[in-house]
């Protein structure tokens, strides 16, 4: 299939591994799904310490399950990416470890306190939900299929994140104050989650033309702000003065992009933001520490012993 045919036929779940697709499509789809899979893993890495720090057993259970879900999503997505025949899961995981793999901006920032958890579990996951919901109509069928399960589980995460936010914002004065401070720290990052305006987005045109991407950055950001500004206010959070956000006559929002730190954003996009590099390095160290287990299993298989209980 040549590129023009791909563009003509591009529609929801239009292409599967049975199709002979041009390299350009395969590479664009791999890049997009790999980014998504990496983000699941690095999000889980960021949140894991809060399984322990969760202030009740039920919250601890929910957090452990959430982190497990993210790893499961990573597993599903790497499989969907692998099915394009460009890169293996091992290559993608190795790239993530060595700092070549890219992932969401929000997961480059360290999290220090429980009050920050709803910033990820409610706002970032809520933002991700919006994007993921549109990806159920992406043209690469295995990706769309993975999104069905991911969206279903993310719904629970966002609910749990909202529940934590509500608990914090109806708690003591100190809790409310710390949560507001965390919100102010995370709000610009959350807005940047959707990336730069469409004019500045490099990959959008092609990804949209072959049906991989269903909505533009601006459309997604608008839809998110439309829903989450009232939600934030409803829980008693004050929207920070910057970045300035103007409501247009038609009810959509315009973000004053100059108020956001794009140097930081693009440093993050290149994995050059120092705290993010620490997280990449921390995960790499943990993975290197269990390299011996993977080698032991590989040797067992090489000696002709079938692996028992694959997990």
């Amino acid at each position: 299939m040549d590129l023009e045919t791909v563009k003509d036929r591009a529609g929801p779940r239009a292409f599967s591994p049975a199709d002979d697709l041009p390299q350009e499509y395969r590479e664009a789809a791999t890049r997009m799904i790999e980014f998504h899979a990496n983000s699941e893993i690095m999000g889980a890495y960021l949140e894991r310490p809060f399984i322990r720090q969760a202030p009740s057993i039920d919250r601890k259970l929910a957090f452990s399950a959430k982190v497990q879900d993210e790893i499961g999503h990573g597993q599903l997505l790497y499989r969907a990416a692998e099915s394009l025949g460009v890169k293996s899961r091992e290559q993608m995981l190795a790239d993530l470890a060595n700092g070549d793999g890219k992932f969401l901006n929000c997961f480059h920032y360290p999290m220090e306190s429980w009050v920050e958890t709803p910033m990820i579990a409610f706002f970032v996951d809520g933002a991700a939900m919006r994007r993921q919901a549109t990806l159920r109509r992406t043209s690469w069928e295995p990706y769309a299929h993975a999104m069905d399960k991911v969206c279903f589980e993310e719904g629970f995460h966002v609910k749990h994140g909202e529940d934590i936010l509500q608990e914090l914002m109806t708690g003591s004065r100190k809790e409310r104050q710390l949560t507001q401070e965390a919100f102010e720290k995370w709000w610009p990052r959350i807005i940047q989650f959707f990336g730069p305006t469409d004019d500045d987005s490099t990959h959008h045109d092609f990804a949209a033309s072959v049906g991989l991407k269903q909505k533009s950055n601006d459309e997604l950001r608008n839809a998110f702000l439309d829903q989450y500004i009232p939600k934030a206010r409803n829980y008693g959070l004050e929207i920070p003065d910057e970045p300035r956000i103007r409501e247009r006559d038609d009810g959509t929002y315009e973000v004053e992009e100059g108020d956001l730190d794009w140097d930081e954003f693009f440093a993050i996009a290149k994995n050059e933001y120092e705290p993010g590099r620490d997280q990449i390095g921390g995960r790499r160290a943990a993975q290197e520490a269990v390299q011996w287990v993977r080698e032991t299993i590989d040797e067992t298989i090489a000696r002709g012993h079938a692996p028992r209980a694959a997990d």
Partner: protein
Amino acid sequence: MSSPLENPTDFSARERRALETLVKRLGDDEFVLAERYTEWQVRAPSLESDLALANNAQDELGHARLWYDVLADLDVDERDLVYERDPADFRHSTLVELPFAEGDWADAVLRSYLYDAAEDLRLEALEDSAYPPIADRVGKIRSEEEYHLEHARNWLERLAEGEEGRDRLQDALDRLFPHALTLFESATPPVETAIPTREASGSNEIERNTDETSGDRSDADAAAAVEGDIVDFGLRTATLEELGEEWLSIVVPFLESLDLDVPIDESTIGEGVEYAVTVESLPTQLGRDGTHTDAWFDLYDDLTHTYRELERSDAAKIREDPDR
């Protein structure tokens, strides 16, 4: 065995103390082990093993929650049991509190095996507990623990096939085995027992404090007495000694079949009794008596950090009461 224990409000002080001591050793083991397991999330050798380990951690947390909930009928809630309890008043075995060295997957699977093999036996001895809320919980917990045991055995067999894996398992075994034996130590009853009225609680204090022997001695006596009660009241149908012997008769041959040397004193293998847990083979800290390794106090600090930081006075419940 005394008459079946039905209504906690009719319990004598001794019955309450026995129940609370038993349930705390059960719940604390599961809770602390789960805490340690969660350290492997996002750090396991593969995405698949990560998912499996996370499952086990959540199972153990769920079991801790089930056991702790038994004490809700005695007016002891999660806040008292976890977030406001003196860490020195936890009764888990030191096996479950030890930290993992980074990447020491051999420790994780061996610890799981040693623990789950004991767990299986102890659940069997709780199946016919005279206290129905305990017996009712066994079925669900046991089915999950059987899977854990299978999972741990499979991993042990795989790791033991390679030289590095076997060396690492041997190191872990030498380190963990004495701590695993503390699973079968009797537990010192909690300082503040779950007796709802202050007077009754006070009488226990007096009982402890008027003991003429040293503190250690009185603690050991109290532990032996309450352990006797646990069996006499039919809360558990086997003694710790019986459980320990049975456990040894299962784990020692299995570990030896993997070419591992089990650090057990062969002289204890005598007539009639194949294996026995001896005082000499135990570590300095037993856990069950409230003595713990430093790692536990650090872990406790970490897991109560948010609760203290936010000056909480309650632990949020988001799930339904399991008895409903």
